[in-house]
């Protein structure tokens, strides 16, 4: 019997792959086996904050090099707000290190 995965489950798999490719995955290497530590993507009805941070950083790293999407990022001295194309605030980044890095990369 073939079990078709729901879109949410496929999304979970895709985000785990992205997590692995981002280089944040931890691997425990035994003699004949390797264990890859995978994050829990969804915590109840919420997104794991680490995954959200990875997505946000990934997005910001692209917007700093491309013209498209820059209008969707509002930069204030203490925070960055990422908006939807319609202007609705989606993500707020308060991490000062990230804010400063983003500001410096645009100078």
């Amino acid at each position, binding site marked *: 019997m073939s079990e078709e995965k*729901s*879109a*949410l489950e*496929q*999304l979970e798999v*895709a*985000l785990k792959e*992205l997590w692995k490719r981002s280089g944040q995955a931890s691997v425990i290497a035994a003699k004949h086996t390797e264990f890859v530590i995978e994050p829990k993507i*969804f915590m109840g*009805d*919420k*997104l794991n*904050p680490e995954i*959200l*941070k990875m*997505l*946000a950083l*990934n*997005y910001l790293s692209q917007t700093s090099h491309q013209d498209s999407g820059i209008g*969707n990022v509002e930069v204030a001295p203490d925070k960055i*707000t*990422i908006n*939807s*194309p319609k202007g*609705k*605030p*989606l*993500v*707020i*980044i*308060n*991490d000062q290190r*990230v804010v400063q890095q983003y500001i410096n990369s645009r100078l």
Partner: protein
Amino acid sequence: MAPITPTRIGSVEQAPRQSGGTPLINLTSTELNRLVYDVRSPLNQAQNGFSTRPVSTEESQALSTTQPQITKTPLNLQPEIPTETYRPAVALAPGANMLEVIFALGNGQLKTLAAQANREQAALNNGGKA
């Protein structure tokens, strides 16, 4: 069985032995009587078909004292940061939906899946109708 000698146990010194006579047990007559009772009592009860007995005739001090009422105190794990000013490093904006955020921030495949998951959830909320 051969006696334990210094050669058997290596360099470990033997404890000084008591030089015969009655072992030194400092018990009052009351305590001694209680000890005898504690040993005899289960034997007698076992003969009479009983198998349980109170370990001691004394009431436990812990049981006799009244238990303090348990009070719940909220635990603040980050006392230096007041709750109203706490701001996580990266967070969803108020009113933002998780799938909406993945759709906006993700690449092509994530966008497609997030949109599909959003449609599925909407259908579920709509009573199973697509």
